[in-house]
């Protein structure tokens, strides 16, 4: 189901991002890469993912509100997780790390792209096999990011103007989740952040991707009734 969500939608407007994620897979010697933008108040756009699992890892971090990508954005530093199954990763992101291991992710490396000193996007990569990036891989990958970040910022900014705030963008813009949050906020008479938390929790406990769950909520196939417990 997830692969259907993103395959066949390779938006031409983000050609450089596609190129960067593909090159990053080679440079870092990983199995998949994705580029995400995280806003100041919780908005999150998956611009492109090279494969279904990259898509799923991004969605999982959004659902749980934790993970290497979020930490890379918050700290402005690369987050290198050599052993997803190891005690450090499991303690740091209890929900995400556990699910990532179930999804056969051995290692994840997240790199913030910085402009004027602050992160504007995060490149997240994963590998099935656990283990560190080699010195050469790290150097080649960072070189790639350093040389392409200005072009990437140009391309992102071109398609993300504050005036264009409606309509699909990238491979996962989470519009349905925001709309479903508004719907649940009205139905239950609760603040929007609480509504989003209810949706995330229900999707997670039902083992359904939160975007797909939000579509069910919008279609009236899942109705929140009882107050939050």
């Amino acid at each position: 189901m997830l692969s259907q969500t993103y395959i066949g939608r390779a938006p031409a407007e983000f050609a450089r991002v596609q190129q960067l994620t593909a090159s990053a897979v080679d440079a870092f010697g990983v199995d998949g890469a994705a580029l995400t933008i995280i806003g100041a108040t919780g908005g999150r756009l998956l611009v492109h993912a090279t494969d279904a699992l990259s898509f799923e890892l991004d969605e999982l971090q959004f659902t749980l509100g934790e993970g290497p990508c979020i930490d890379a954005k918050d700290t402005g530093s690369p987050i290198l997780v050599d052993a997803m199954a190891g005690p450090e990763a499991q303690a740091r992101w209890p929900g995400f790390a556990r699910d990532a291991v179930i999804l056969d992710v051995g290692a994840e490396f997240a790199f913030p792209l910085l402009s004027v000193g602050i992160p504007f996007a995060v490149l997240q990569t994963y590998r099935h096999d656990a283990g560190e990036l080699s010195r050469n891989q790290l150097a080649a990958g960072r070189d790639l990011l350093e040389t392409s970040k200005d072009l990437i910022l140009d391309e992102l900014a071109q398609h993300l103007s504050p005036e264009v705030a409606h309509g699909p963008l990238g491979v996962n813009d989470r519009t349905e989740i925001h709309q479903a949050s508004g719907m649940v906020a009205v139905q239950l008479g609760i603040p929007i952040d609480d509504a989003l938390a209810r949706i995330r929790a229900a999707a997670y406990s039902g083992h359904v991707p939160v975007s797909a769950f939000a579509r069910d909520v919008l279609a009236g196939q899942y109705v929140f009734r009882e107050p939050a417990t």
Partner: protein
Amino acid sequence: MTNAIQLHTLLADLHDVADPDQALQRVVDTAVALIDCDASATALLRDHKHIQQAAFTDDLAKRAALLQLELNGGPCLTAMREGGTIRIDNTLTDDRWPSWCAAVAEFGVRSSISVSLVSGDPRSLGSLFVYSRQVNAFDAEDTAAVQILARHATIAVRRNRKQANMTRAIDTRTVIGQAEGIVMTMYDITADQAFAVLTRYSQASNRKLRDIAAEVVRARTLPADVARSAI
């Protein structure tokens, strides 16, 4: 005028400021540190009449720069419309912008340099302005220094604005989606219809769509009068 090392240090600093307003303030502060002048001003225009963003080192620089919009004429406006640099050595004798020169001469402005500055938005124009209370205050080297600063300012402002707009766009999309969900639920309409309602509300009240959406999300409803006319 300063030496190359000082120039490098001053200019390198420009590129590390994340906040757009602070970045612009840094540009005018740098101008004053860079050459022997009394003050500096810079303004980015949304179009030929409206200021989008501006910074000044003193009130007189602000008045001298903004007066040009009222008069619809002056060295900064000409520099930004035609591109390039305009130096005035004596406002008492220069006859190219008589109304502006007469007005600023009254305040004590005698010499000035105006350089065009481009923000990256194709519709917007900008300029960097320095003035002195002395006649013949600026030479070719001062002019070159202001031009170099303007080039760096252009790059810094452009990157800065791009990044700020992009982050804001992500959050704007979020809040508009949430507001759509609220309106969809209240009136049992589609997302596109809800977006149209919010857009009409925005146009009718002459307020930005994201402000309207944020208000709807906070209140979890449309104001009653809006609901009557917009639905």
